[in-house]
C-alpha cells in the first residue's frame, strides 16, 4: 500500500468512527420520539432536560460527519448530497427544527406553544433517524446516478454528477433502505430508554417504564436488524479491479469472511448490545445498559461502514452505470489534503478526552425533579 492508500483507509476509518458515534448519540432523537408517549408532564420535563444536556453533541457530530466527508471524500459529498437532494433536505430540515425547539419550547413568548416545539422534536426523532438510516442504506443498495467529470467542459450542462429525476425520493421509497432506517429508529429508542434509566433519578415509575420500553424497542430493533443483515449479506455489489468495477454476488458476506476481524467485531457488538438491553430490562438495579448497548451498537456500525468501503468495494454503487460507482480510491481528496487533515485528526483524542471529562462532570448527579425546580436554565 502506498501513502495515499493508507491515508484513504485511515480517513474511511475516521468517517466510520464518526458514523458510529453519531448512531450512538441518536439516543437523543430516540428520546424525542418518546415525548408524546404515555408519560406525565413532570416525566416529560425530566426527559427533555436530560436529553437537552446532550442534543448539541449529536448535532455537532452530524455536522462534523458531513464536514469530514466533504474534506476527505468530496466526490461523495457532491454526488450524494447534490443528487439525493430531497433525502438530505428532509434530514436537514428535521435537524433545523430540532435545534431551536429545546431552547424555545417552554420560553414565554415562544409564539407557537410548547406542543408545536415538542412536535418538531418528535419529527426530528422519527424522520432524522429513519432518513439517516436510508442515506446509509444507499451506500449498500446504491443510487441511480452517473458521474462524468468531462461535463465540466460543457458550459451549457456542466454538472458532473447526475442523479435520477426523483432526487432521493426513490431512495426513501426503497424497502431495503427503509429496513435499515427503521432499525436505526428503534435502536435510537432503545438507547434512549437506556439513557433515561442511567440519567434520571428519583422517578421509579419512569425508570420502570423505560425498562419495559428498552425491551420492547430492543426486540423490534433486533428483528429489523436481523432482517437487514440477511438482506445485506445476500446483496450483490461492485468491486474495483484493474479492469474497473465488477459486479460480485454476496459481496458484503465475502467482505465479512475475507476480513474475519470485522465478523468478530460484529459478533462482539451484537452481544454487547443485547446484554445491555436485556440486563437493563430485567435487572431493576442496573443502570449501565447505555454503555454496553452504546458501545455494541457503535461496533456494529463500524463494521457496516467497513464492509461498505474496504476491500475495494464500491461504497456508493450506481444502479444505472457501474463505472460511475464511488469507492474509497476514486472519490477521495488528494494526498496533500489527506495528509494535512490527518495531522489535524491528531487532535481528536484530545477532543474526546474533554468531552468525556465534561460528560462525567455533568452526569455525576443524575437529573431529578428537585434539580428541575431549582435550576434557572431549563428546557
Amino acid at each position, binding site marked *: 500500500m502506498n501513502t495515499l492508500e493508507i491515508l484513504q483507509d485511515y480517513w474511511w476509518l475516521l468517517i466510520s468512527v464518526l458514523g458510529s458515534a453519531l448512531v450512538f448519540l441518536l439516543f437523543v432523537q430516540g428520546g424525542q420520539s418518546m415525548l408524546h408517549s404515555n408519560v406525565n408532564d413532570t416525566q416529560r420535563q425530566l426527559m427533555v432536560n436530560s436529553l437537552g444536556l446532550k442534543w448539541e453533541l449529536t448535532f455537532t457530530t452530524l455536522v462534523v460527519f458531513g464536514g469530514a466527508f466533504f474534506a476527505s471524500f468530496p466526490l461523495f459529498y457532491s454526488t450524494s448530497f447534490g*443528487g439525493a437532494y430531497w433525502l438530505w433536505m428532509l434530514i436537514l430540515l428535521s435537524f433545523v427544527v430540532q435545534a431551536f425547539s429545546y431552547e424555545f419550547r417552554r420560553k414565554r413568548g415562544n409564539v407557537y406553544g410548547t406542543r408545536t416545539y415538542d412536535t418538531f422534536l418528535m419529527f426530528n426523532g422519527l424522520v432524522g433517524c429513519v432518513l439517516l438510516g436510508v442515506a446509509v442504506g444507499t451506500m449498500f443498495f446504491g443510487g441511480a446516478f452517473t458521474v462524468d467529470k468531462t461535463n465540466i467542459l460543457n458550459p451549457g450542462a456542466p454538472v458532473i454528477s447526475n442523479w435520477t429525476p426523483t432526487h432521493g425520493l426513490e431512495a426513501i421509497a426503497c424497502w431495503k433502505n427503509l429496513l435499515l432506517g427503521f432499525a436505526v429508529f428503534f435502536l435510537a429508542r432503545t438507547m434512549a430508554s437506556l439513557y433515561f434509566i442511567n440519567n434520571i433519578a428519583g422517578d421509579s415509575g419512569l425508570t420502570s417504564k423505560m425498562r419495559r420500553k428498552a425491551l420492547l424497542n430492543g426486540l423490534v430493533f433486533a428483528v429489523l436488524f436481523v432482517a437487514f443483515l440477511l438482506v445485506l449479506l445476500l446483496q450483490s455489489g461492485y468491486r474495483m479491479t484493474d479492469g474497473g468495477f465488477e459486479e460480485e454476488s454476496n459481496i458484503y458476506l465475502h467482505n465479512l469472511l475475507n476480513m474475519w476481524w470485522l465478523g468478530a467485531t460484529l459478533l462482539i457488538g451484537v452481544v454487547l448490545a443485547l446484554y445491555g438491553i436485556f440486563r437493563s430490562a430485567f435487572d431493576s438495579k442496573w443502570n449501565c445498559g447505555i454503555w454496553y448497548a452504546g458501545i455494541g451498537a457503535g461496533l456494529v456500525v463500524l463494521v457496516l461502514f467497513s464492509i461498505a468501503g474496504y476491500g475495494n468495494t464500491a461504497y456508493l454503487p450506481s444502479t444505472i452505470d457501474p463505472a460511475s460507482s464511488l469507492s474509497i480510491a476514486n472519490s477521495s481528496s488528494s494526498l496533500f489534503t489527506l495528509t494535512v487533515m490527518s495531522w489535524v485528526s491528531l487532535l481528536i483524542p484530545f477532543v474526546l478526552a474533554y468531552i468525556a471529562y465534561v460528560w462525567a462532570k455533568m452526569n455525576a448527579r443524575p437529573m431529578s425533579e428537585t434539580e428541575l425546580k431549582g435550576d434557572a436554565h431549563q428546557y
Partner: protein
Amino acid sequence: MNDLLGVVDWSRAQFALTAMYHWLFVPLTIGLSLIVAVMESIYVRTGLPKWKGITKFWMTLFGINFACGVATGLILEFEFGTNWSNYSWFVGDIFGAPLAIEGIVAFFMEATFVAVMFFGWNRVSKRFHLTATWLTAVGVSLSALWILVANAWMQNPVGMKFDPAQMRNVMDNFWEVAFNPVPVNKFFHAVFSGWCLAGVFVIGVSCWLLWRKRNIDVAKNSIKIGAWVGFAGILLTLMTGHGSAVEVSRVQPMKLAAMEGLYRGSVGQDIVGFGILKCEDQRTDEDPMLFSIDIPKGLSYLIYSDGEHFVPGIRDLIDGFAINENGDTVNTVSYAERIALGTKSREALARYGAAVQAGDTEAASTAAREVEDNFKYFGYSYLPSPEAAIPPVGMTFYSFHIMVFAGGFLLLFFVVMLFVSYRKTSVLEKAWLHWLGIISIAIVWICSQAGWIVAEVGRQPWVIQDLMPTTAAISDIPSSSVQITFWIFAAIFTGLLIAEISIMLRYISSASKEDIANPTH
C-alpha cells in the same frame, strides 16, 4: 438542463437567504459570548452576587440566540453539497478541509462547554464554570475562523493547483490557504464586528431598562462593559475593514470598482462620500452618478496611501488597461482576451482527456501545459461576454456605503456612551439617549448585513474568483425543487426569527420586573 439559469438563481437565492439569516444570529453569539465571559470573570474575581445575576441575564439572551445560529448554520454547510455539488467536487479538496477542521477544533468545543455554561451552575465549581464560559467564547470565534478561511479562499483562491487528470483543483499549500492576508483580515473584521454588534445590543437593551427605570445599576454596569467591548470592536473593525479593502483592490479590483460605482478610474481617484447612482445600466464612459459628494483623491489615498495613484474602474478592467502611478497607460489582459484564454485552457483540457484515453503521453503532456499556462483565466471561459463579469453594481455600491455610514455612526455612538458612562452620568437619565441606544440596535444589524452583501454580491458572477462562475458550480436539480426548499426555509427561518424576537422581548420585559442582580434562583 434547460432551466440552468433558473437553478442558478434559485440556488443563489436560497444560499443568500440562509447565509443572511445565519448572519443575523452569529455576530451576536460571537460578541455576547465575550461579554458574558467578561461579566462572569468579574463575578468570580469580586465574588459579588450581583455580577452572577447580571451574567445570567445576558447568558439567557445568549442562549436564545445561540440556538438560532446553530439551526441556521447546519443548512449552510450541507448546501455546498446539495445545491453546489459541482463546486464541491471542483474545489472540495481545498474547501472541505477548513470545514472539517472547524468541526473538529471548534464545534465540539462550543457544543461541549455551552452545556456546562447553561446547566453547570450547580453541577461544577465556579472556576470550572468560568473556564467553560471562556472556552465557549473561544470555540465560537474559532468556528468563525475556519468558515471565514473557507470564504476568503473563494475570494482569493491560493495554495492550490489544477490537476487535469482529475479535472479538479487540489491543495498544495495549506498555510497559504489559511493565513494569507485575505482570510486574516476577513476573520478579524467579522469577529470584531461581532463585538461591536453585541456591544450595541447590550447597550440598547440596557437603555431600555433605563428608560423603564428598572434595574438601573445592572443597566449602567452593562452599558460600561458593552461600550468598552463595542468601542474596541468598532476601532478594530475599521482597521481590518481598511485592510480588507486593500486586499480587495489587489485580488478583486472589479469588486472595489463596484463598491465605488466607478466605471472609469483615474489618477488621484476621488472617493464617493455620499452618492446616488443613475438607474440605467451603466456600460459607457458617462458619469454613473446622479448625484454625489466626493472626497478628492480619497480612494487613491485610502487604498494605496498615495493620493496620485491610479484606481481602475469597471470599464478600464474590462478593456484591459490601466494607468500606472506615473500616469502611463499600461495594457493588462482585457476580459475578452481572458475569455479567449480561458476557452483555450478548457479546450486544452478536453484534448488532454482524449490524449490520455488514446495513450498519447506526448499530446497529453502538451495539452496539460496549455491548461496550466492559461488556467488563471479558466473560469472566464464560462462567461458569455466580458460584461458578464460585472457584479450587480447598485447593490454592491449602496451596501458598501450603508456599511461605511453605519460604521462611522457606531464609532461616535460608542464614544458618546463611554463619555456619558464615566464623565457625564447625568445624561444616562435622558430619554433621547435611551432611544438612541434602542434605535442603534437596528442600525448595527443593518451595518452587519450590508457588509456581507458587499462581500458576497461584489464577488459575483464568481463562486471562486476567476476560476468558477456560479453557473458552473450548481447541482443537477430542477429549479422547482430549489424553489420549494427556498420557500420552506424562508418560512421556517422567518417563523424562527419572529419567535426569537418575541422570546427575547418577553424575557427582557419579565426579568426586568424582578431584581436581576439578585435572582430568586
